[in-house]
């Protein structure tokens, strides 16, 4: 067995062997730890919000605090957790391993991107203590309110600006890596599907993030100098803010979901011992989602005012996105068909991903239809929908990835029984928490309100209880993973019998990944 990358610390020692390391595996783990920390912050904020909504009227906080909580919950969960969750952490750790490279194309830029990320994180959290109080304009920063509020919106917008750099640098690094550093024989169609999804994601990051950067800067200029682009009093138009914001922020949801789909495409063949069904279809559908996803942003603005032509066009294009997503779901199910299925924890999370993502996706189609959209716009239906795709989709895939690659990262096995129990609690808690929101929204409960009429009490109460169940499950999962890192059984190099390259090196991988760059002669899901 070779010396693992934990032992080979490079030029520096102690903490510096991590925060000054250019090893993609160490940077991946830096990302993973910081992402998990922000996830815990986001979960805590969410739990507090649910606690407030346990009963009508003021329960534990006033309306202003609630506004700050939902804004920060959104900013932390979207910019600091779910966007980099799989791509920056597992992408960094496993992309070079999966294509047979020793590192990414630009290792120092890779480290720089983590510094941008962590700076943004610190800035975002510091808004809690900034003069004026935490931002209360929501994670979408809609003008004109975001211009006139005295809370620290500028600081939060600056955090979003900075995290954009991290995203762009990761994106261009990964694209160059995939183009330039594939091992000999690793043709485009021998790449694992996770790599394909990371590739598509990286393109979206490069295509969309600069627009967010400029719109956040303009918002700050608007607040500092009163430039007036988004201020009707000065001849500007708030709708322009919404357009520019969603030109980034809609493609951003594909930054969140595409790597998740890649993880699922890697796990399902391994746990059903069959080669993936429709490899090329899945690979191309990733690229299609990345392409079409770029031109559907207008569906966030059906109620804001746009021409009839724009409405049906954006609605139509949004329906189109369902096709590549459907292609993936059917191919995953077809892969499972007649496989010899091993119901391990990664597969349990993957299967629940398919189930929850389908609910989220189909309710997404309901939102895509203009007439329905106008009815449920800005209600809990939307809240339920995007939590089903983002948490039920990307979040569950993140947990799946966490369990699937855990033995490779730590060299040990987690406790399978505890992991399955945790999965069951998380799955039940998730549905109890978010499903009532569909009903609430359909009945007319608007989002972002800290109070509600009496008739909504039961559903809100069930939802809040669900949040406790979900949190319990997450705690059990994390405790299991942390304890197993010290006490778990030795995993061996390839506990799941995976055929992709990362399973062919020792666990944890050696510092330079491959003693000799492998020669690739078969596909990633060839188990014979």
């Amino acid at each position, binding site marked *: 067995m070779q010396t693992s990358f934990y032992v080979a610390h490079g030029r520096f020692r102690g903490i510096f062997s991590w925060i000054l390391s250019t090893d993609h595996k160490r940077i991946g783990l830096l990302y993973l730890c910081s992402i998990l920390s922000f996830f815990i912050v986001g979960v805590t904020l969410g739990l507090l919000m649910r606690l407030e909504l346990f009963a009508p009227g003021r329960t534990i906080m006033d309306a202003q605090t609630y506004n700050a909580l939902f804004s920060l919950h959104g900013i932390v969960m979207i910019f600091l957790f779910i966007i980099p969750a799989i791509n920056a952490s597992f992408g960094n750790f496993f992309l070079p391993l999966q294509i047979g*490279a*020793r*590192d990414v*194309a*630009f290792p120092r*830029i890779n480290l720089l991107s983590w510094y941008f990320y962590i700076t943004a994180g610190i800035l975002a959290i510091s808004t809690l203590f900034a003069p004026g109080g935490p931002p209360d304009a929501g994670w979408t920063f809609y003008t004109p309110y975001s211009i006139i509020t005295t809370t620290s919106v500028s600081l939060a917008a600056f955090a979003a600006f900075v995290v954009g750099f991290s995203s*762009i640098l990761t*994106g*261009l*690094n990964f*694209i*160059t890596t995939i*183009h*330039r*550093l594939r*091992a*000999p*024989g690793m043709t485009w169609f021998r790449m694992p599907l996770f790599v394909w999804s990371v590739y598509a994601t990286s393109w979206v990051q*490069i*295509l*969309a*993030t*600069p*627009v967010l*950067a*400029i*719109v956040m*800067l*303009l918002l700050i*200029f608007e607040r500092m*100098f*009163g*430039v*007036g*682009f988004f201020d009707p009093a*000065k*001849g*500007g*138009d708030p709708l*322009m803010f919404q*357009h*520019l914001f969603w*030109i980034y922020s809609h493609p951003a949801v594909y930054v969140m979901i595409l790597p998740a789909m890649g993880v699922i495409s890697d796990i399902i063949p391994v746990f059903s011992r069959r080669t993936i069904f429709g490899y090329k279809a899945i690979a191309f559908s990733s690229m299609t989602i990345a392409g079409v996803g770029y031109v559907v942003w207008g569906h966030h603005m059906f109620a804001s005012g746009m021409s009839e032509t724009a409405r049906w066009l954006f609605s139509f294009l949004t329906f189109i996105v369902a096709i590549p997503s459907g292609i993936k779901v059917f191919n995953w199910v077809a892969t499972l068909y007649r496989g010899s299925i091993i119901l391990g924890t990664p597969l349990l999370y993957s299967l629940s991903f398919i189930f929850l993502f389908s609910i989220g996706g189909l309710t997404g189609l309901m939102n895509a239809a203009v007439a329905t959209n106008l009815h449920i716009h800005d209600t809990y239906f939307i809240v339920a929908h995007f939590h089903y795709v983002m948490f039920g989709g990307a979040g569950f895939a993140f947990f799946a990835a966490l369990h699937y690659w855990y033995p490779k990262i730590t060299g040990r096995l987690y406790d399978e029984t505890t992991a399955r129990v945790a999965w069951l609690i998380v799955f039940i808690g998730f549905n109890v928490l978010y499903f009532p929101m569909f009903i609430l929204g359909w009945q007319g409960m608007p989002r972002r309100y800290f109070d509600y009429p009496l008739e909504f009490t039961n559903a809100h109460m069930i939802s809040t209880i669900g949040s406790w169940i979900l949190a319990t499950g997450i705690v059990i999962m994390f405790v299991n993973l942390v304890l197993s890192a010290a006490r778990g059984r030795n995993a061996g190099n390839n506990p799941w019998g995976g055929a992709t390259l990362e399973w062919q090196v020792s666990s944890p991988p050696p510092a330079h990944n491959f003693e000799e*760059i492998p*020669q690739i002669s078969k596909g990633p899901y060839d188990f014979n």
Partner: protein
Amino acid sequence: MEAERTEHLNQEQQRDYTGSKMGMWLFLYTEFLLFGGLFLLYSVYRTRYVEQFHTAAATLDTVLGAVNTVVLITSSLTMAVSVSAIRKGDRKLSVSALFLTILFGCGFLVIKFFEWKAKIAHGLFPGALEMFELPQGEVIFYSLYYVITGMHGLHVLVGVVVLLGMLTLLMRKKINEKDFIKLENTGLYWHLVDIVWIYLFPFFYLLT
């Protein structure tokens, strides 16, 4: 197959020229999109306030704008000369051309400074009292003028700083005829800054 393998190892252990360039082009692409957001605002408001954009644009100093255009295009020429010279191993020419580029870059910023100063002296800047008496379209025009030329100026400034770094690398022979990708990439960035200005000049100064 063996040749492919060796090439692969070369890419990893040594400098990957194509890879570096690819990364730079991707970065330039994001820069275009950054300015793209601003051009989008420009085009929307230009369509909305045709007359007022016309009036406001007439107040800009076309002569200074034209001089700046010439200065920046010439700096792109000297930049290209610098890259070509080091490829052929002519360090002396490369250094002096790069020095000229930096000089032109600074010249551009100085002219820009006086242009802004004159406008600000007339009370034409976002938030000024005089601005409230102007029609809304003109206010938006001046805001766009400051934000877009400001963002561009910031890019020139960053460019000058990077060029200074390149100059030291060049003089310490860290950039030579075998390894000139840093200088070449800086050149690409400098041309981007130039191209953006080539659009800004007609948009703000000529379309009156």
